[in-house]
């Protein structure tokens, strides 16, 4: 209800609210600018990648400075825009991560020459638009905004997936993506309206308390609540490509350009994981503070958490098993992406801040390694025109940098120390184990056993995933170059020949050099993040502290946090 005093309050808040929203504003401004560029002839003719880099760079800078400030000011959570959005260390962290992912993607597109000059404006406008939606997903504090943000992230993704004009596969992928996405968001909207209708609010903190109260009263779920939550998670499961809502993922990744697939797999997933974690942990924080009985902190992990965990376990197992038979690299990586979503869901499922922190670390590692892997796929595609495993045979002889960095990315995905992927995986596993221990210690041995089982599933999956990652490594390093590959004429000497029609400036050997630098930097960061944990864990801990309940209860988080 807008009374004059309300409006006054809104106006006074507006200044500070806009400041919190600055990175998003920069990105939004970038989208508008890129669209307007179409109207100016000179700009329309030039490649607009530089603009996108500048926009994202500025946004990233603003976001990082914001993070610094948040770190200084005791990490407060500030709802803004009338509570629609929330600014807390968690959203700030994931926002930074998303901007970094977008920036790295744009840099990659500059190296690989997709999109070409004519389409660059549209491409980068879509990319920035999608990024904006994902940033909103991480900060959404109201069910309505959750829906809007998910849609805002999804719609540009649909277009991006089909961006390679004239490719049947790309169009098919986009169409499949749209159909699936529309269905999923319809279901999610239904769930949201059920929840909002039942509790009379969509504001997450209020909703969480109401849900906690209702669950506490009923001692569990009633059908209405169960349906509402499940339907919301269906929508999120689609974004996460969690089994059984994963069918779009391999097809879309295969059809879309590798750069786009990399962006979708990293940024879109990061945003979805963050949103899922926020929903669940907000519920958990409300539930554990409300509860009078000692069992109440375990009510949510024992129900919703367990459900998410089982979904995660199924997802990780399915993703790994399905990846076994793939010969197309993008499809293989798509299934690996599904598996990694499963690992992250395992971490989210136990609903402890320690696990949330671990998942954030996982996201950092995942950003570097998955984007790196897709970058190599894109560069190999440029050089050979092929994306199947045969094109990678003997890659190490043609282009040592590509092969060695790809091996590092894959080993990191597999979880080999001392790479960042291991650091993430280790922390997630340790958090799950810790939660199992906490549950057993707090009189819920059944739940503890269930968490231990999740932990075991994760560990076993790590071992079996070795097979398909090693298959790629084997093709790259151990196999002799295959005859099926349309190998470039000067392949033996020239590290990464770029086919001239795709190169942005037709700059010949300069591009491979830049690409080598790009990949080397990614790989070096991957090693660094695997060896030097302290700064990153400090940041993730601070981010996850947003969900520590205000009043300390010796609940599920006691084990993880009490030792420090």
């Amino acid at each position, binding site marked *: 209800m807008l009374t004059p005093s309300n409006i006054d309050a809104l106006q006074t808040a507006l200044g500070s609210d806009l400041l919190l929203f600055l990175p998003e504003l920069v990105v939004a401004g970038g989208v508008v600018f890129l669209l307007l560029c179409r109207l100016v002839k000179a700009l329309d003719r030039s490649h607009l990648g530089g603009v996108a880099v500048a926009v994202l760079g500025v946004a990233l800078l603003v976001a990082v400075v914001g993070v610094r400030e948040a770190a200084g000011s005791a990490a407060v959570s500030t709802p803004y825009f009338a509570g629609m959005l929330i600014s807390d260390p968690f959203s700030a962290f994931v926002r930074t991560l998303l901007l970094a992912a977008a920036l790295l993607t744009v840099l990659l597109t500059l190296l690989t020459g997709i999109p070409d000059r004519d389409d660059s404006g549209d491409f980068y406008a879509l990319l920035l638009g999608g990024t904006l939606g994902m940033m909103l997903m991480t900060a959404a504090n109201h069910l309505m905004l959750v829906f809007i943000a998910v849609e805002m992230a999804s719609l540009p993704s649909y277009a991006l997936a089909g961006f390679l004009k004239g490719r049947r596969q790309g169009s098919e992928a986009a169409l499949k993506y749209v159909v699936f996405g529309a269905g999923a968001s319809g279901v999610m909207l239904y769930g949201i309206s059920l929840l909002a209708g039942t509790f009379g609010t969509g504001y997450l903190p209020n909703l969480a308390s109401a849900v906690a109260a209702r669950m506490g009263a009923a001692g569990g779920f009633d059908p209405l609540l169960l349906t509402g939550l499940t339907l919301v998670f269906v929508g999120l499961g689609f974004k996460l490509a969690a089994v059984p809502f994963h069918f779009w993922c391999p097809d879309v990744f295969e059809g879309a350009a590798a750069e786009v697939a990399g962006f979708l797999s990293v940024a879109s997933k990061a945003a979805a994981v963050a949103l899922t974690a926020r929903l669940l942990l907000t519920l958990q924080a409300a539930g554990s503070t409300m509860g009078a009985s000692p069992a109440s902190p375990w009510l949510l992990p024992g129900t919703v958490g367990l459900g998410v965990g089982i979904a995660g376990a199924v997802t990780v197992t399915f993703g790994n098993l399905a990846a076994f038979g793939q010969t197309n690299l993008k499809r293989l990586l798509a299934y690996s992406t599904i598996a990694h979503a499963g690992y992250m869901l395992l971490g989210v499922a136990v609903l402890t801040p320690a696990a949330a922190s671990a998942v954030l670390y996982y996201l950092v590692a995942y950003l570097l390694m998955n984007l790196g892997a897709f970058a190599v796929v894109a560069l190999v595609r440029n050089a050979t025109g092929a994306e199947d495993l045969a094109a990678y045979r003997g890659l190490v002889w043609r282009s040592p940098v590509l092969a060695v960095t790809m091996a590092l990315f894959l080993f990191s995905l597999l979880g080999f120390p001392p790479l960042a992927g291991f650091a993430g995986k280790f922390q997630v596993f340790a958090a799950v184990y810790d939660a199992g221990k906490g549950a057993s210690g707090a009189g819920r041995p059944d739940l503890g056993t269930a968490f231990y089982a999740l*932990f075991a599933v994760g560990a076993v999956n790590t071992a079996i995933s070795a097979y398909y990652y090693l298959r790629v490594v084997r093709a790259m390093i151990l196999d002799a170059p295959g005859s099926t590959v349309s190998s470039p004429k000067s392949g033996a000497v020239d590290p990464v020949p770029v086919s001239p029609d795709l190169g942005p400036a037709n700059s010949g050997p300069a591009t491979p050099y830049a690409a080598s630098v790009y990949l080397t930097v990614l790989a070096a960061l991957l090693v660094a993040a695997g060896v030097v944990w302290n700064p990153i864990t400090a940041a993730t801990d601070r981010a996850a502290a947003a969900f520590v309940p205000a009043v300390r209860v010796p609940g599920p988080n006691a084990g993880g946090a009490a*030792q*420090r």
Partner: protein
Amino acid sequence: MPETDLLWMSLLVFLPAGFAAGLLLFPSRWVEAMRWWALFGTAGTLSVSLCVLVGYYNMLDRQQDRSGRPLHSVHTRLDARADQAASDAARDVPRYLADDWVARRPWIDRFDVDFALGVDGISLPLAVLTALVTFLAVVASWKIDRSVRGYLALVLLLETGVLGAFLALDFFLFYVFYEVMLLPMYVLIGLWGGGRRRYAALKFVLYTLLGSVGLLVALIGLYSANVRDFVDQDEVKTKATMLQKATPGLTAEEALTRVEVHTFDFVTLSKVGRAVMLVLNGQADRLAVKPKTTARDEPTGADGKQVQLLSPGVDRAAAIDRLRAQAVCTKEFQYLMFVLLFAGFAVKVPIVPLHSWLPDAHVEAPTPISMILAGVLLKLGGYGLIRVAFPVCPWAANELAWWVGLIGVIGIVYGAFVAMGQTDFKKLLAYSSVSHMGFVVLGLAAWSAGSGSKYWEWGVSGALFQMVAHGITASALFFIVGVVYDRAHHRDLNKFGGLYEPMPLYSGLSAVLFFASMGLPGLCGFFGEFTVFMAAWSYSPALAVPAVLSVILTAGYLLWAWQRVYFGTNPGTKTFPDLSPREAAVLIPFALLAIALGVWPNLVMSWMEPSVGGWVANMAALKP
């Protein structure tokens, strides 16, 4: 200002990696320069390892035990040094010129992981062996001419991984190094190996990876134990103050009761394991608190019955209650952890039935890699059993000791029988490795106590000595195969023969190493096997008899192979040239060491035994 011992040990671990990085700067045409560079790097590492050895020996020699013997002071044992270092660290005592050969620096705060390195008589012989074998393997690698840069860089990286694993005192750090060496090995076998190299490389990685997933689970499981009563109490107090600061509304007392300490430190985890063994055996009354003063006397209590594991200043009753309440103090947990650790290391040893990767990997790997694989990598499995599996889960180890010994004996006999049936020279040696490493397992398993603990000490030191001896003989024998393969281009035992005539020097050196491997007295293979037999006999004659009888098998297959390769006349081998100087430079050190260690085992035993004695004393005291 870093400690000097930390500098030395870090240098030892990272010097090869540094030289590997240096290789990247060479222009790709300077192949010969790269070889010399790598040789220089491994020689440097060997020198550093010897410097560390001298430093360690000095440290041992400076202190005397109660009866005035040098080298045997309890205060030079690894756990005593580690405890002292930990309490110094908690009190912020400056240690610029420390020479206790234990060093730790915080690495990952979130999980209390330390970058902890340390040496004792158990790890140091194997570290020196690693440096030596890698050095000689690089000498043996001169004939490798396919992408030399990558090859040498991977060998050096492998050396860093192995040395790091031997020197690590922190389970997490150990695990990282343990995994780091897997990838270079995969590529080295897969890229420079023989015909079925890709299959062999994949098999090697999958087996090892399955083992290390077991280790990873155990790693996380053991980390969950609350070790607050086993670490320095000042550290607990510091943590309590931090917790109190972090949590508003918590009194100092509450914080102190609530604080939990978790660690990956081997020494601390072992203390927990030993305490758990006492509790599970119903002997919690023997669990005692260490006296506060750092008294210069033997640490066992007045009546010899007390086992002082709890840190000074701990409330004994409360500590035992806390321990009992933990999951770590259950039989299921101990069994599970021991089985995971044992299986993880058994893959590496390798123990039958997890050994089937080894023959494939050996046969396909190039000669120098086979040398490293047999000489060094297998030792990591045995080392893991000694350093991790047994001390961390002593209760389960004791319960299952007989079965572990049985597995060892099965490995000895099975390996010997299968070796007898081989016609491929390398496969024969691979199975002889399986057989010889079985002695290591048997020696460790010969767990007896009280008056028999002397025998067990023999068993463990025999196992360690056997590892060193096998490292020397197996590396040398694989090189011997490589030499003849370079000339004959096959490894079929039935097609050799008559090598003695054209290659007398080669045959003479081979004879020394063959007989050393067979366990002939006066050569290095004898001492280890003999002491293991002694221990096994006193532990269980049922296990000892087949192991002793297997000596006949060992002699059988080695002599038979010797006969087929060297005796007789063979027109096909008449023209083979004798050893080149480079080849002789590899074999002669091995042969000399084999003789030296056989004639004078004290060369290693004198500084190895005190550590083994301490290890056994810690464990044997747990039995009533």
